[in-house]
């Protein structure tokens, strides 16, 4: 878990970059949209794991990674990347445990995002 030590939950610079482009008023919608997407994606991953659909897990993890990194949820992105790599390697032994890490990181992210929004 050496990576998690240096990877922040939320990349504030990325968030500021997005805000500059799409506008401050759009930010709550964006974060809300992401959080809804994240919980849906987490559910989808759990469903795929139940039926051992490795390819689905790889794709879902890949997309989840991209979306996370795009809004600056860097730690979540790292975790998704690890899951994607496991799926590519066909090693899903620790996948269940990894999903729990994702859930916890999502809680951290929610907290961080609400802090950012409350700063206004």
């Amino acid at each position, binding site marked *: 878990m050496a990576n998690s030590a240096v990877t922040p939950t939320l990349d504030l610079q*990325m968030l500021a970059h997005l805000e500059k*482009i*799409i506008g401050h008023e759009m930010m709550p919608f964006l974060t809300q949209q992401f959080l809804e*997407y994240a919980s849906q994606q987490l559910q989808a991953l759990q469903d795929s794991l139940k039926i051992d659909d490795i390819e689905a897990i790889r794709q879902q993890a890949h*997309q989840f990674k*991209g979306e996370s990194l*795009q*809004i*600056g949820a860097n730690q979540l992105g790292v975790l998704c990347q690890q899951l994607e790599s496991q799926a590519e390697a066909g090693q899903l032994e620790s996948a269940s445990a990894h999903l729990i890490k994702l859930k916890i990181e999502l809680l951290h992210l929610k907290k961080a995002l609400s802090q950012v929004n409350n700063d206004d």
Partner: protein
Amino acid sequence: MMTRNPARILVVDDAPLTRGLLEQALLKYGYKVETAQNGQQAIDYFLAHHPDLILMDANMPVLDGVTACARIKALPEGKYIPILIVTALMEREWVDRAYVAGAIDYITKPVNLDVLRNRIHYILQAKRAEEALFDEKEKAQITLASICDGVITTDAKGLVEFLNPVATKLTGWTTQAAQGLPLNSVFCIIDEKAQQPIDLPMQCCLEEGKRIKIENPVLLHRDRINRFAIEDSAAPIRDSQGKIIGAVLVFNDVTEKRKMTQALAYRATHDALTGLYNRDEFNLQLELMLQTARDNNTEQALLYMDLDRFKIVNDTCGHEAGDQLLKDVSFLMKKKIEAHTCFKQTTLARLGGDEFALLLKNCSKQKALTLAHHLREAIESYRFFWENAQNEQSLFTIGISIGLVPILTPLINSKSLIAMADAACYTAKNKGRNTVHIYQENDSDASHKDIEWVTLLNDNLEKKQGFHLFYQSIIALQQKNDFILAGNPKRCEILLRMKIDSQKQLVLPGGFLSAATRYHLMPTLDRWVIQSLLVWLKTQPKFLTQLSLCSINLSGYSLRSQTFLETVIDDIDNSNIPANKLCFEIQETTLRNLTDIAYFMNALKKRGCRFAIDNFGSSIASFSVFKNLPIDFLKIDGRLINNITHDPVDYAMVKSFNEIAHQMQIQTIAEHVENSITLEALKKIGIDYAQGYWIEEPQALQ
């Protein structure tokens, strides 16, 4: 940001959040945005809407972005669409595959929207520049395809790069087939005259940068059947630094134009009836032959031929029969001459009527004589059959009289040569027709005296002091005639004299007029008189003010020549001499064919010129013709005038001429007045004016 229609961008990503973000951002940047969720949707959308740019994620379910990119690029309409691939930072292999698939560039995820903005901006700018360039090129190609000229371009080595449709039509080569071939193997031309292939000097154009143009008529030689008369030029193409990067050849099909020119040239040099050369061309060929003969010292011969008994055919069967006979005879002579293969250069011409001439280059007297006899025999044995509209049949035999002049000394002039040949032909006729006569210097025939005159006349016309003008005053006999004009009005007749170097005295017209008439020199002489007089009058303003009437003699040949009339009108108009001071004297004997003469007179009358009838009473003395002609003066014949003092009949005639003339408002002039008794008698009769040696001898114009 954009001044024109906003560019339409298709965003393709399976991730909803990123897709939405990219869409939002690009909308903010001023683009129109559509979205798709995978590669397959992207292809479908592209086919339906042709966006200006596609921004596509690489790694997508259903159909990945790189495969979709490759498929779109493979479509004909997808060749120029820029596709920007979005890929994760670690996915290096996707980047390589994206370029292979034809992507214009890639951008990494997570997407930095500022970087994206710049990258899209530059891609679209480059695309627009490329489109503008493509439009220009297309426009240039459409222009080249639309123009009527053939255009071929080459590279700097002279190898073909492009042919426009006209060039393809004329050469038979397409751009595809001709590309890379040397220009001269695609554009094959031959010199029309020499019928030899020639090469365009492309080195001149490509290495020295000169424009080239082939001046001789050339044919574009496509194959044995397809040959086009063309005009062409080639010019170097230079780049913006002035370096030659190729050449452009422009040519057009002038087949029709050249045909027309050739037809016109043919008509100008050939006799319309027989197809033989005409008189003008014959004279030209004769001149040319004399020039080359001077350089080469070779023997030539000239035949002058006149048909015998042609007039009988014309008179009994009409012109149609006459024309047919001339055509038949021409054909027969042509065949005979061609049969003598030893004559390489011949010019057979119809000079007019039933007169023909044949020029034989590099030909001895003996060979020419043999041919002349063969021609004579052929014509003699020829039978002309004619059936008229009433089915009446006639059969004619004709003959030909030939005058032959061997040209041993090329120093002789062409006019004298023709006169000699004509004279020899005349002798042949006199010897009993249907014979050949060879011209000899010491022929005693009177016509040979004429030839000397013709030679002299021609020589003198080219000299500055060959001829001289004289004038003789005409005085008023009745007081009333001078009261009309104030001062001391001058009237005179202009007379012509010829200079002969060997003689002290000038020659009077009586010596040379018959030769000049016979050899068609009268219009030339008459014009010389008019022009010289007008020039002289211009230098004498004082004389011109006093001058009331200046009388000039004209020959009947001049009256009937349309070109003579035109040149005289031009001469008078250009001289600024008042035309009413000029009077033209016409011989009573030439008053035939009144329509032509009336036309001539009326044309000059309109300008103010006056007319006198000369030598009236020397022949038929008919007043009736005067009714239709605008005549101002009647000049009564000198022989009658000289007789009035001792012959009562002549006296009565002169008296009655004067009375009738006055009734017709015509004034009278007595000529050749040689003594005072005559002058007094004329005054008494009422004659208006008189001239003669007793009044004043002719004076030279100073």
